[in-house]
């Protein structure tokens, strides 16, 4: 593994590694399409969760602020996109205008949540953020009166897909003899975006800003005494995390074509947080792994649990959903026992565990 990604010690190996990963990423959607287009969609959703988890990682992993309402920013981004690109208000702005608006709006909400909670830590912050997440969802549910802003629980339908001139991301076309379905096009866009956001995460982590976040996470009093403006740095963490959530939400809106408050419940917040914690808080690659695992395993179960049970017992005894929660709980317990810092702990926590 190390040989393939260490650009300093093994330049050739590193480039070979990058090339292998690149080829795999390019070929993957066509391989998946071979199994079924559903799997490309599932992959896209998994990548969306990677984006979300990376955004939450800035807040929770880097700055150490426990946020249980993160899905609210995803909701804000999704609704901004839906309202500005659907028949609901008969607005059809192009996605490259709406996504930044969505990110900015989510960012604003991030600061709105951050500002009153600056003095809160740990459990107290978690409770307030949880409440915030619920408030957003309840607003979305009820803002259909007196002015129909969100269309309430019915949600918003017929949301525009991404379009770039005549290039429509939702349309199936054949380019260079290859069958590009809608999900495959979105897949490539998402992969590009995820690469950019991984780079931003890694660079932030190893910067003056990232160190200030680490300092706040370790000891806020000492951080302030060392001249770090903890207020601004915490707001920055909330704002950055929220923006990533907003962008992911916009893409979610466009790929689904339909959104309702149902998609932004507390369990989703908990899922994203679990991805961060399971993968390894603060470690970008750990978080990606966590997000992929928690996105794919349930889908794999959905397609395997039933046939396996029918083959074994002749009928289905336990619903896939039940097994999913069972395994999820088991995974978290095992993790706390054997890998408390996550599957791929951050360098920091790893050093800590090895006792070096």
């Amino acid at each position: 593994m190390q040989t393939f990604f260490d650009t300093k010690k093994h330049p050739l190996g590193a480039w070979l590694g990058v090339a292998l990963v690149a080829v795999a990423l390019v070929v993957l959607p066509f391989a998946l399409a071979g199994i079924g287009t559903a799997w490309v969609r599932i992959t896209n959703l998994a990548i969306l969760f990677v984006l979300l988890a990376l955004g939450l990682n800035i807040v929770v992993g880097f700055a150490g602020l426990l946020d249980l309402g993160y899905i609210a920013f995803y909701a804000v981004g999704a609704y901004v996109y839906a309202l500005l690109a659907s028949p609901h208000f008969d607005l059809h702005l192009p996605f490259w205008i709406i996504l930044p608006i969505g990110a900015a709006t989510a960012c604003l909400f991030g600061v709105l949540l951050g500002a009153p909670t600056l003095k809160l830590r740990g459990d107290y912050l978690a409770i307030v953020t949880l409440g915030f997440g619920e408030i957003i969802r309840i607003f979305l549910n009820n803002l259909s009166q007196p002015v129909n802003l969100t269309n309430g629980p019915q949600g918003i339908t017929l949301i525009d897909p991404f379009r770039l001139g005549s290039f429509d991301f939702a349309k199936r076309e054949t380019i260079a003899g290859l069958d590009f379905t809608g999900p495959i096009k979105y897949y490539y866009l998402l992969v590009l975006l995820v690469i950019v956001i991984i780079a931003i995460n890694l660079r932030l982590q190893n910067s003056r800003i990232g160190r200030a976040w680490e300092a706040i996470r370790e000891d806020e009093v000492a951080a302030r005494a060392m001249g770090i403006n903890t207020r601004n740095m915490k707001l920055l963490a909330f704002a950055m995390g929220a923006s990533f959530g907003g962008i992911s939400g916009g893409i979610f809106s466009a790929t689904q074509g339909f959104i309702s408050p149902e998609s932004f419940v507390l369990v989703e917040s908990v899922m994203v947080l679990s991805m961060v914690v399971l993968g390894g808080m603060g470690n970008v690659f750990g978080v990606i792994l966590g997000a992929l695992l928690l996105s794919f395993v349930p889908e794999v179960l959905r397609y395997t649990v039933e046939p396996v049970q029918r083959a074994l017992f002749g009928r289905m005894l336990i619903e896939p959903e039940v097994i999913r929660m069972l395994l999820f709980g088991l995974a978290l317990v095992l993790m706390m026992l054997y890998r408390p810092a996550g599957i791929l702990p951050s360098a920091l926590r790893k050093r800590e565990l090895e006792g070096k």
Partner: protein
Amino acid sequence: MSASEPLALLTAKGISKSFGGVHALADVGFTINHGEIYGLIGPNGAGKTSLFNVLTGIYSADAGEFTFDGLPLAGLKPNEVAARGIARTFQNIRLFANLSALENVMIGRHVRTHANVIGAILRDAKTRAEERAIEKRAHELLEYVGVAKRANTLAKHLAYGDQRRLEIARALATEPKLLALDEPAAGMNATETASLKGLLGDIRRDGTTILLIEHDMKLVMSVCDRVLVLDYGRKIAEGTTAEVQRDPKVIAAYLGGDIALDLKGAA
């Protein structure tokens, strides 16, 4: 700053602070001159650390004010005080425990560096140069306090004496004019204390004024120019180490009134 009339770096006037009915500080005033090592002593609970916390903006004073380097400190937050040039260490060491020694000192550079989010993401030439400068300076400071060999060790795995020294390096990284040390020799053995004394001398020689809270009287009396003595939140004496040592009020505070009287009678 002529020898005959030293310039005041920090002036405190009528500083008072109460917690409920406890007067932690009552009308405390003093002046610290440029280039001094100024001792702050007193029995446990005398208000030394409270004075530090008021000075560095962690608490706000009920009355009185500090003038630092010609400007008032009133109403400044701890990070603003640090930016103005006062850096401190903590009595119960507050390092960033899970970060390496080097990273701890690099964080100290935060207040004197400028890279913002855009710079951090784009990593332009200016940001990269600043990063290199931060790391270089951090290594120099580790060398300076004598923890260079443990640069990559997590702060919490350092020996106790090294943790104290690392805290000083981290404080120095903020380029303070006044370095406020809260019991730096606590828990140190004689050898470590002796080398700490050397370090304090070096820091003063290199132009940083020091405010020192310390219980190790041998260290205080040998290293400080002047000393302020607090007892029950009040200033009971101020002067050179020799003056303070002779002061009956100081002796009484440390040994108890009766013993002080006995000593007087014996003499």
